[in-house]
């Protein structure tokens, strides 16, 4: 309910600069204008309730009841409290899925960020054709995931994939990218890094535009080389943008289902089963929808994302204070 307060207040200060003065003077502060404010906020409130609050409540509701298929149809699911959560956490798959999630998320994030930043700095140079090249780097973002996922799966095919035939030319034997539990995680991370670079590139590039060129000029006059300039100017001044890029990337990557599902469906032998994949598989991946454990896993993911959100807010506050 904290949400309702904010939109209700917001419309009041808004009209101030634009609205004609006499109107403001007459109606200001009476109960009537508060009603108007509420009325204008009503569609938004209704929207928030219907599309944000309700699904969240429903998801919690699913996770604390035992919704098997029968109970789902008949609507008489038994209340089981935290049993679904306990079952999920004590399942042998939980540790593996949690570890896979950590590896997948941080493996993807680090490389996406480093490569995205390197490219952003590279394109800051504004050389000829840099615009076109930068646009080309956005291609992974524009392609439908089903297309890029299938393309990666083909390229990494053990027997006929282009990656293996390329490696073969250098005398490296067949690597079973997607069908060996040792390399499947690496394979999906590579694909996901490729997918995430454009996002990092775009945000970091726009962050770089906000750093004044004078600083570089002054640094150059003081004799700072490119490397020194990067560590003393670019990187520190880019810190706020980096933080939000990494946070958004983290939230996106935590909930990635599609690319893994297309490439390995979480296999082989659960080696690419992340928490998100696990949740999806429980709900939709088998002939028997297990909505309650799926909702429990999904809610755990939401909590993880929230924790990192709070860490981000804290960091931001500290930065503002200093």
């Amino acid at each position, binding site marked *: 309910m904290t949400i309702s307060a904010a939109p209700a207040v917001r419309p009041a200060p808004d009209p101030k600069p634009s609205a004609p003065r006499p109107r403001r003077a007459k109606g200001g502060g009476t109960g009537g204008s508060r009603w*108007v404010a509420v009325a204008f906020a009503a569609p938004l409130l209704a929207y928030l309730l219907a599309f944000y609050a309700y699904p969240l409540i429903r998801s919690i509701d699913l996770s604390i009841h035992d919704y098997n*298929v029968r109970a789902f*149809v008949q609507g008489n699911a038994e209340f089981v409290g935290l049993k679904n959560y306990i079952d999920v956490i004590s399942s042998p798959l939980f540790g593996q899925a949690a570890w896979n999630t950590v590896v997948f998320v941080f493996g993807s994030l680090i490389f996406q960020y480093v490569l995205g930043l390197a490219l952003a700095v590279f394109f800051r140079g504004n050389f000829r054709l840099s615009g076109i090249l930068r646009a080309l780097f956005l291609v992974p973002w524009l392609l439908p995931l089903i297309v890029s996922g299938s393309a990666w*799966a083909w390229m990494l095919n053990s*027997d006929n994939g282009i990656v293996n035939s390329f490696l073969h030319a250098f005398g490296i034997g067949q690597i079973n990218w997607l069908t060996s539990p040792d390399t499947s995680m690496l394979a999906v991370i590579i694909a996901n890094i490729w997918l995430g670079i454009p996002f990092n590139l775009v945000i970091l590039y726009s962050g770089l535009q906000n750093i004044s060129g004078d600083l570089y000029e002054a640094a150059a006059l003081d004799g700072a080389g490119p490397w020194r300039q990067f560590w003393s100017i670019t990187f520190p001044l880019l810190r706020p943008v980096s933080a939000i890029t990494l946070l958004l990337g983290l939230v996106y990557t935590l909930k990635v289902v599609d690319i893994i599902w297309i490439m390995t469906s979480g296999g*082989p032998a659960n080696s690419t089963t992340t928490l998100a994949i696990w949740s999806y598989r429980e709900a939709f991946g*088998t*002939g028997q929808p297990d909505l309650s454990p799926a909702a429990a896993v999904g809610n755990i993911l939401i909590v993880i994302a929230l924790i990192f959100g709070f860490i981000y807010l804290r960091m931001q506050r500290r930065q503002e204070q200093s």
Partner: protein
Amino acid sequence: MPDTFKEEHMLSTTLRKPLAIAVTVVALGALAGCSSSGDAGSTDAAGGTYTWWDPYPQHEEGSDWAKRVQACGTDAGVTIERTAYDTTSLTNQALLAAQEGTSPDVILLDNPAVSTLADTGMLTTTEELGLDTSKVDSNLLAAGELDGKDYGVPVGANTLALYYNADILSAAGVDPASITSWAALTDALSKVTAAGKKGITFAGINTEEGSFQFLPWFWGAGADLSKLDSPEAVSALTLWTDWVNKGYAPQSVIGNSQNTSWEEFITGDFAFAENGTWQVNSAAEQPFKTGVIELPAVDSGVAPAPTGGEFITAPVQKDTARYDVTKEIVDCMTTPEGFVETANTFAYYIPPTSDGQDQLLEQHPDLDTWVSAVKAAKGRTSDNLGTNYPLISEQLWTAVQSSLSGASSPKDALAAAQKAAASATEGK
């Protein structure tokens, strides 16, 4: 200008409150309207319109299949409103509709889903509807059975068999008729690979398709789904794993769906492919000569393959008066002529009654391998597994994946699967 401004201003003050209320009402009304319109639509359907869902989105409006469905409605004096979903989303849609009380009159369901949905109480039994199922082959009907009651009639059946590339086999000196045991098949695979070709492709993906493809070997070894870690089961999984390890089957089988596996076969490089009735037409179109044999059991004879295909089911309706027309529609689809027509429309369905099968064989004598494979086939949910089957199957395909990918040995993989399946089905 100032005058109009004044007027506007006055208007705004007097109308402010009522307007605000109006806006709120409209906003809420719009929301309420959204949520109730779904219900309204389906109760309207009573006026001579019957709803029909099936998993054949490939057959669009105006296709032979759509016309045939409509004809059955016309015979019963009603209009049929047909909606097609893909197989997985059909099950989910059916569950949602049942929850909302807006089930369609007829659903064509993939057979392993029938017992799961029947368990929710959302399907009528064939007895309630007064359908005659006495002519239907009992091995096929069994898939729709739960606690001694039938919840639907198969509209047709398909199953798996072993396609072969005749050109490759003759070049390698292998006679397909000699392949009546696992040893003979493995021997053929070694000859073919020695001749520089690829052996066999199948689908080992970690979905229901993976279990579907593994079951003929599992059952062919004499294993039982209620005991996944039996020595027979281990021998079946060892067979598959050895094929992959020796290079008789490509690594890609671990992630192959039945479609991708078929695409591998039609490259012309593979000697064998385990695939289903639905590829008969595609096999005939290939530039190389193809043939088909039944899947061999471990020592001799034919392995039971799992039955595939849809059941025609009638979900429970609030208005039970609708059942009479529903029965007429179902009857129209399940006469011997109806079965043959369905088989011809789809080109991959074997009728589930012997009358229907005889009629089909008269028209297409080349389908005899498939007819006998369907007769030998076995429902996945039969053996009274019912709603436990999906739970067991998930563990089975996980074990197949673990073993083929080398994550664990066939024995360990199946032992883990049995343990997980037992705890999943416990108390059900």
